[in-house]
């Protein structure tokens, strides 16, 4: 960024709501979206006198997965701490968070800047905390809904390594893909699953020093507005520096009507959160679980792109589109397997990328459509039944696994029939026939 001889210096804080079954420190259900206010609450998430927190280990595992996906180290000793401040949506008067002893530290993520150049963004920390309740203001009343109070929240803090808005955009998009492929969050920005805060300052191009101030852009609930706010701040801060004004640490919000940022809190009003170790919770000693968690972690988008390019010879653009959506890549890989060498990876990829809703297509159908456009389809029930019986006989073990309840095992049998028919059997009928046979024999 070279505009006016200044460059942006941006650090990001991303909060992501985890999709665990239970809240972070109690057994309340997290399935509160669209539910009536204050129906997913208990003494713990209401902060009633005498209630105590307990740790949701599913959330801790998710937090570690995020940390590992971002190349962080999981701490040998990590602690929860109390972040003390007053707000009506915070029933305990403190948030259980992490400060001196975060769960994961020292990672990085590669992002593309405005020139398409790849840069490593350093991740300072990935820590676990809890969400607050929600305030609604109407007329002269303020209503509090504590359904969201105690929902597990992971905070990811970067070093101030961003110098343009494109990198910020790419970072946010990549994080979203990582959350989704790890299956730890729906990462839906509209629903507030994923929230961004930016620390923005500017410095003369060529300077390597961090500016001695930073403006925190907070409570901006749309990615588009965040980008607009950063752009606005760049101009505002450059103009101020050019006028010889001194910029100070402050928190600013975004006024969408006026298309400008506005002061929320100055340096003097900065909170002192009085962090101290949460005495109601034991130390977290989970580093020993890292090996197991790494084993269970699915392939991440970056690795997938690499594999599609190297092993399947897909072009970068196609590999990126497929890998960015874990459902789409699943359809792609299943279809490719079913096609059993009759179709090239690129043919299948193009078909899916050009479809309106590739991620929700039935892989068998995709292969079918591509193949029938070449040759005739086997629809004869007897013929299919014969092949299905053969497939079951030859793969008795797989059939047994299916009968024991692992219904996805049928995919492998469908693949066998498709290969036997040289890809010509009607996939929907194959599935139906297999199911009939397997269920009648058990």
């Amino acid at each position, binding site marked *: 960024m070279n505009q006016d001889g200044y460059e942006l210096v941006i650090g990001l804080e991303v909060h992501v709501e985890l999709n665990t079954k239970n809240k972070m420190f109690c057994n309340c259900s997290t399935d509160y979206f669209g539910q009536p206010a204050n129906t997913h609450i208990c003494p713990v998430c209401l902060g009633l*006198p*005498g209630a*105590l927190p*307990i740790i949701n280990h599913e959330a801790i595992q998710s937090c570690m997965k995020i940390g590992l996906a971002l190349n962080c180290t999981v701490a040998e000793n990590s602690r929860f701490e109390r972040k*003390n401040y007053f707000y009506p949506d915070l*029933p305990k008067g*403190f948030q259980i968070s992490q400060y001196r002893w975060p769960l994961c530290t020292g990672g990085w993520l590669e992002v593309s800047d405005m020139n398409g150049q790849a840069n490593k963004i350093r991740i300072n920390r990935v820590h676990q905390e809890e969400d607050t309740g929600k305030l609604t203001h109407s007329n002269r009343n303020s209503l509090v809904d504590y359904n969201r109070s105690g929902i597990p929240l992971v905070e990811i803090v970067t070093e101030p390594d961003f110098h343009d808005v494109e990198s910020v955009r790419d970072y946010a998009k990549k994080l979203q893909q990582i959350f989704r492929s790890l299956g730890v969050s729906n990462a839906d920005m509209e629903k507030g699953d994923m929230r961004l805060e930016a620390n923005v300052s500017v410095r003369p191009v060529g300077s390597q020093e961090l500016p001695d101030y930073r403006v925190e852009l907070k409570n901006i609930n749309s990615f588009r507005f965040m980008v607009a706010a950063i752009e606005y701040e760049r101009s505002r801060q450059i103009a101020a520096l050019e006028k010889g004004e001194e910029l100070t640490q402050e928190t600013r919000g975004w006024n969408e009507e006026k298309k400008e940022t506005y002061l929320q809190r100055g340096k003097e009003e900065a909170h002192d*959160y009085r962090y101290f170790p949460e005495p109601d*919770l034991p130390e977290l000693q989970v580093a020993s679980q890292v090996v197991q968690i790494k084993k269970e972690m699915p392939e991440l988008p970056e690795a997938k792109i690499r594999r599609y390019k190297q092993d399947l010879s897909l072009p970068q653009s196609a590999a990126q589109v497929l890998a960015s959506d874990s459902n789409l890549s699943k359809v792609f890989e299943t279809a490719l397997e079913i096609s059993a060498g009759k179709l090239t990876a690129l043919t299948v990829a193009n078909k899916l990328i050009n479809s309106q809703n590739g991620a929700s297509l039935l892989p068998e159908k995709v292969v079918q459509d591509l193949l029938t456009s070449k040759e005739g389809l086997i629809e004869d029930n007897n013929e299919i039944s014969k092949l299905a019986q053969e497939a079951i006989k030859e793969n008795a073990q797989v059939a047994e696994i299916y009968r024991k309840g692992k219904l996805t095992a049928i995919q492998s049998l469908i693949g066998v029939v498709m290969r036997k028919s040289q890809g010509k059997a009607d996939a929907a009928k194959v599935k139906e026939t297999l199911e009939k046979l397997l269920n009648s024999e058990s």
Partner: protein
Amino acid sequence: MQITKLSLIETKQALLDKQFSEAELNQAYLDRIEKLNSKLNAFLHVQTNKVGIPAAIKDVISTKDIPTTAASKILENYLPPFNATVMNRLAAQNISVIGKTNCDEFAMGSSGENSAYGKTLNPWDLGRVPGGSSSGSAAAIAADLAVFALGSDTGGSIRLPASLCGTIGFKPSYGRVSRYGLLSMASSLDQIGTFTKTVADARLLLEWMSGTDNLDSNCLQEAFKASNTDKKDNLKGLRVGVPTEYFGQGLDQEVAKVIKSAISKMESLGAKIVEISLPHTEYAIAAYYIIMASEVSSNLARFDGIRFGKQRDQFGAEPKRRIMLGTFSLASGYYDDYYAQAAKVRTLIRQDFARAFTQCDAIVGPVSPTPAWQIGEKVTDPLAMYLSDVYTVPASMAGLPGISVPAGFVQGLPVGLHVLSKYADDETVLNVAEVFTEQTNFAKEKPDL
């Protein structure tokens, strides 16, 4: 037979033997409360039950649909929608709540004078304090107003009033009994315990109340189970440590005499007396007032005027003082000098005890430097008040089990003997205390009311 003089174990047996009914049992205690509570102000709330074995519960323990005020105006109208874990465990043993007992507001105080609903008086001398903060529970058992009582001990709040009221006050090891439902004062120190008429009752109650609770992460997994039920009448083979630091300046000479004679008694019962040193004792109160106040400032933040109907100006002077102290100790730039330093001192105190317990099995000494003092005597001098906890705080900082048992009198006022043991070795504390109380008569003495 006087029903209200019976211990928990005797009461259970008498009910089994149909010597009286549960209704008669409850009525006997209700009559006594009716007669004496106006004098003592031990209960803030009384329940007129006809069933169950009546227990008095300190008003900082959450009781479902029964007022729980922590003796504070802030919670004047609070009816908890849930029971503390201990209340559920006691209910399963047919224990009922006869009333909620007075205490220092949010368990903050050493004299019982900090209640928003008036001070509790000492049954042995109505002009003196009963000790705090579990003042009402101690007074209630001294005056036979319940079969037993629950209290909470953060820096001495069970042991000190037990000493001053001549009852048996037992604080189990930290985490031995679930804290779920105990209104938090200082989470890393708080522990629920008992006031009983016999040590055997304290042991039985610990068996009932202890054990893992998935609602309290700091609760010990194993339930307490007495390993040896054969009663002993001597202390042969026991090494009793006497810390030099607990007999220095500030200890009333008459109290020292009572404690020394108790130690001689233990020696005559076969115990081997060893002099030990706990060198960091002198820093315990200072470190305690930083850690405790820090946790208090955070734990009381939830009473912000939004959900419980009362503004923060309704806090009494002592909670306000501790909120201020704690807020200051945790402030940015001060944390390292105060909280972090205090945490280090805490580790040193733990190490003191660990070293001492290589030389002895139990540690004994005074509970309070003086017998019960005059009402109002220390209210204007918070530091003097804080120093009444000088012998109880170190064990709290280390999470150790401790008990106060009656050991004699100074000018008609009871004096308690403090017995401590290793972390999680609640059994030694109880066994030593039991032999001592059974081989002396002090625990049977009752105030003339």
